């Protein structure tokens, strides 16, 4: 007889809320045939709020390993749960502004909830099996979301491309996990760590396993040389989905990477550290330089998110308490900027009825002062100007690097940021180009209020994170202690 696994229900209440929410949304939608399905989106928002509420309530509780030791619920997991719930909530608010939500809102919300579940699970995974299952759960959901706009060829292409390339990434990860299993005889993180500590240095099985696992996770982060999918997928996907991917996927994948490096792969730091240093530098350089020549704003932001991933990798390399704290704050600061920026683009796409390019966005800032100003703040945040959350994030990352002897990586990041300012400036210049005149086409269409609320919330977070970052740094520090302590 199979023994029932030990499950602490309260510890996984956030995930349960998300899944129950998703099921509820789908069931309610079944009864709403032909009517406005925006109600599904509202239910989804409620599910995210409940899930995040559970995680906040459990903040500070002692860590628990549960579900047959597949999941570890600690401060880090809670932090990701809160962040992902926040991202999901904001994304749904943005999505409400999209006309197609009236017919397909429920499905959108349900799939988003599934994706969020995968993201919180991957952050808490305690074995490579959980890691893989969670990764697939959110990846498959995202494939669907990318292709969600069936009337748009670009969206379908985006989903298909992500599906094909993403599957390759997943396979690489599984392959690496299999090699590590071969070398250590375990999928559990502690088992792998123990096995690797005893393995002879330089064993090819270990090296191959480590590199393949890294490759799989770097793929999701969008770091070089696995970044090719990012621009195409970001450009084609519905813009609210792009914002969610830039914010939440990055959080989940980065935390998973940090956990894998801090727990199972900690004994083989010598193997992965040089690889990551090269990857980080290349990602910063290529991301920033490629962003310089983009005319499509979504594509430009995609490359800028690649560059941001490179910056995050600096914090991963530094590791320890300072590096992990910097990483978490940086990711948390990046999320509202990304969701906010793409929310503004959603507004512009509605106004303009087309793709947001440097040409089509000309002088738009004069017509929509609030959205324009918000976009400027988000871009300044990306660029790392003072008094934005983005600046504090970069400040912490560069600071942790300088503190632990990686000052030259901080200089590389700083130079990347200089290039970054140039392309963000191109958008700002176009946004307020006096010599051009563009007409608002669909101003005041319904559903815009929710987008504006989302933008305002993001704006408040970005400025609060820059002006009064103390609380955020404390929270990031508490969650980071998990990574610093290792096992």
């Amino acid at each position: 007889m199979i023994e029932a696994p030990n499950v602490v229900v309260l510890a996984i209440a956030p995930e349960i809320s998300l899944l129950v929410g998703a099921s509820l949304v789908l069931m309610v939608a079944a009864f709403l045939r032909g009517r406005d399905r925006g109600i599904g989106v509202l239910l989804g928002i409620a599910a995210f709020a409940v899930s995040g509420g559970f995680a906040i309530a459990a903040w500070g509780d002692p860590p628990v390993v549960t579900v047959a030791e597949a999941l570890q619920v600690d401060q880090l997991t809670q932090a990701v749960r809160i962040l992902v719930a926040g991202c999901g909530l904001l994304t749904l608010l943005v999505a409400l502004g999209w006309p197609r939500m009236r017919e397909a809102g429920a499905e959108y919300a349900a799939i988003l909830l599934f994706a969020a579940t995968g993201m919180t699970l991957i952050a808490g995974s305690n074995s490579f099996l959980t890691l893989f299952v969670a990764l697939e759960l959110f990846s498959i959901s995202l494939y669907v979301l990318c292709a969600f706009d069936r009337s748009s060829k670009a969206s379908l292409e985006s989903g298909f491309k992500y599906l094909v390339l993403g599957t390759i990434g997943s396979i690489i990860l599984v392959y690496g996990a299999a090699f590590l299993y071969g070398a250590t005889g375990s999928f559990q993180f502690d088992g792998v760590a123990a096995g690797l500590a005893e393995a002879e240095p330089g064993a090819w099985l270990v090296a191959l396993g480590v590199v393949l696992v890294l490759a799989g996770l770097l793929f999701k982060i969008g770091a070089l040389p696995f970044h090719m999918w990012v621009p195409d997928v970001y450009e084609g996907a519905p813009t609210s989905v792009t914002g969610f991917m830039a914010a939440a996927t990055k959080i989940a994948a980065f935390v998973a990477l940090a956990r894998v490096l801090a727990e199972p792969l900690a004994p083989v730091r010598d193997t992965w550290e040089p690889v990551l240093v090269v990857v980080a530098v290349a990602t910063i350089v290529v991301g920033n330089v490629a962003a310089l020549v983009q005319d499509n704003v979504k594509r430009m932001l995609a490359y800028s998110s690649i560059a941001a991933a490179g910056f995050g990798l600096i914090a991963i390399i530094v590791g320890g308490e300072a590096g992990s704290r910097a990483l978490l704050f940086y990711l948390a600061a990046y999320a509202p900027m990304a969701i906010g920026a793409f929310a503004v683009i959603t507004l512009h796409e509605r106004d303009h009825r087309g793709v947001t390019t440097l040409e089509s966005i000309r002088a738009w800032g004069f017509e929509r002062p609030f959205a324009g100003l918000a976009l400027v703040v988000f871009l300044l945040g990306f660029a790392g100007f003072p008094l934005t959350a983005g600046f504090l994030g970069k400040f912490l990352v560069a600071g942790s690097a300088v503190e632990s002897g990686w000052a030259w990586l901080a200089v590389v990041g700083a130079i990347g940021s200089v290039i970054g300012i140039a392309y963000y400036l191109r958008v700002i210049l176009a946004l307020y180009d006096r010599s051009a005149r563009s007409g608002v086409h669909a101003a005041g269409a319904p559903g815009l209020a929710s987008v504006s609320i989302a933008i305002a919330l993001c704006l408040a977070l970005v400025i609060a994170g820059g002006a009064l970052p103390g609380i955020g740094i404390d929270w990031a520090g508490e969650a980071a202690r998990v990574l610093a302590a290792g096992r």
Partner: protein
Amino acid sequence: MITATTLITVPLIAGIVILIVPFAQRLAGYLALLVALGMVGAVAGFVYRFEPMAGYQFGDDAEWIPQLGIRWSVALDGVGLALAAVTALVVACAIGYGLWARRDRTHATFGLLLITEAFLFVVFAARDLFVFYVGFEGMLIPLLVLLAVWGGDERRKATVQVVAYTAFGTLLMLVAILWLGLTAPDGPDFSMAAAVGRGNDLVFWAFALAFAIKSPLFPFHGWVMPAYRQSSPEVAAVLSGVASKAGGFAFLAVLVPLFPEQSARYAWLFIALGLIGFLWGALLAFRQPDGRGVIAYSSIAQMSFVVLGIFLLNAQGSTGATFQMVNHALVSAALFLLAGWLESQAGSGDFRRLGGLARSRPILATVALVLGMAALAVPGSSVFASEFLILLAAFADAWWLGTIASLGIVLAAMYMLRWISAVLHEREGDLVGQLRPPDLRSGALLAVLPLALALIALSVAPAQLTERVDPSSQMMVAGAFADKEAR
């Protein structure tokens, strides 16, 4: 209780409010002018209450980001107060001029000018390196937007150049600040007091480069000409009048006190660059075809002279440099406003098309002559007093240094006299003949007059300024002076 924090927060908040709230155009302008005049009043109160021997005053010191050892620490000493006072005056005059010139989009222009003012106050009052960085980098944003959106035809190129130069300098400085703050002996501490004497050569150069670019010091002045030429007159007045003083101030109040040993060791280099810049800028100013060109190159020359004065590292040199910065702020702001007025009235600033303006325009002739006489340092003028102090310091250092520096002052007389005669006297240009630009009256006169009156007041009673500045500036160079004497 009015403190340095009030000085910073009032224009910042007022600027943001004016930027966002849709007041009527004229109302927004008058509100901005009211706030700017209020700041003049507040600073005047500080000047009156200032105790020269009591060091830093009107300060605030509170925890800001305790996790990183960052405090909101601001206070004014004689040097900072002198520059803050001239900033308040110049910004008020610039806003007054903009109001008279009936700029469109007053919300943005004046809001951004007030925000610039706030960040400049941050620079002049910062006692914490993080706070200083926020001001130093933050003032760039509003100025860039002003230049990028309301500049002349080649504003794009100008903006990109400003960003490329200054962002590069400040971001390297940020890495240096991180190093200084995080390697403090008793845990992270970003206060300036804790950083004194701890920096190594690399850190020193990172700071020096940022300040040299901002000042600008030869050969880092490439961004200056396009920026001064393409801005509207009131923005150019703020840029050359006070924003450039952030660089000179930073040399005197941050670089020299924080790095006494390196400042003494490399003083010769800054003296050499200052001399070259002084002579070279003066020569180029003499060759410029239009008023703005003359003022812009003379600004480069004057700021180089200031740097020269600072790095003589003695009491007269540093006091003279501060005095010279105040004088130059008044002169160049007034001249830019005047040149801008001429351009807007006559349609061009080209000397060949102007000329003979003095005829039947007594007010214009008087104001221009007073400013011109001040700029070429006629004995008895305040500029003469400050230049005399620096020359005295130069002769005390080495007789040949004083001799070469005196040569630059002769050149200054040449270009200023050329400007005066080209505009006021000589043959009437075609623009003057056809268009009959009116005399300087009402609004424009009111904007320039306070600057001219301040110059006259300082000429009459220069001791009012030097008495307040001297103890502070002496403190700043004391460490480096001792180091230099020990060599």
